[in-house]
């Protein structure tokens, strides 16, 4: 599932040209903005059937935290 999760992140943020680590703080990515956030939330909903509430999303910093949250609520 981690592999699929990373694929979704790469696809949503259009960062096919580089490696990502689960420890990455994705909100610090150069590509990150409000539109990227909407795209990511929609893609995660599509691919994992998980709707992330904005309050929860605000607290999440790293990809690992995002991944853990998805597993928890799935």
């Amino acid at each position, binding site marked *: 599932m981690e592999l699929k999760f990373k694929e979704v992140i790469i696809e949503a943020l259009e960062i096919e040209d580089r490696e990502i680590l689960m420890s990455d703080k994705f909100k610090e990515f150069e590509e990150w903005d*409000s*539109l*990227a956030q*909407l*795209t990511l939330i*929609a893609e995660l909903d599509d691919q994992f059937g998980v709707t992330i509430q904005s309050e929860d999303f605000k607290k999440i910093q790293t990809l690992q935290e995002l991944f853990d949250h998805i597993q928890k609520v799935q």
Partner: protein
Amino acid sequence: MRSHNPFTLTGKTILITGASSGIGQGIAVACASQGAKVLLLGRDLERLKETIALCENGCDHGMISLDLADDTKIKEEFESFVKPYAPIDGFVHAAGISPTIPFKVMKKNQVLETFQLNLFSAITLIQTLSKSALKSSEGMSMVMISSVMSEVGEKGKSLYAMTKAAMVGMVKSLALEYADKNIRFNAISPSVINTPLSLKSEYRKDDAAMKLVQSQHPLGLGEIEDVANAAVYLLSDASKWATGTNMIVDGGYLAR
């Protein structure tokens, strides 16, 4: 000096959608203050009652709770509601939603839902209102609340912009199609207005984003009354020679 005030709406009956809040509510209040009987259409009857309470001559007005997402219901219920109030002199379609959806993840159901509320519902209402039995012998004025997004783009707003640009396109053709029936069609395209909904926008929480939005509006951000006053003009006899137009009310946003 003329005794007749061409800007008055006295004696006119105006139907307004989206009247339970924001721009629709402001238009209802402005129309009533200019002497019109207003017929309010919205989802929530309690909130429509709040609008009626803000209107002058509250007891003269009418309201109907109707979900514009449901076209079948509009067809079933709207005509019987509006018939006792005929003739109708004006219509304002202020109902609508403004989703922010990245194009990449846009779904067909989101497209259909937004078009239904912003445009398709207006089509059904206009088709009913333009029937000769409902129309005033002195003509009719139909006003669509569009947006500056009908003219320019914004990231994440492609769906909203599609509906608002389509609305302006519709207005121009209907102006020609209905001119011989003395029905005028015009759009109003506001930019950022201080509505309860826009006050909750993401950019309002970000100082830099808010400063940027403000700097794009030489006259500052708009108030509901700025759009409502434009609507009053287009509904009144003062605009009897105006049809097929898109009135930009944007504090200078599109001027540069």
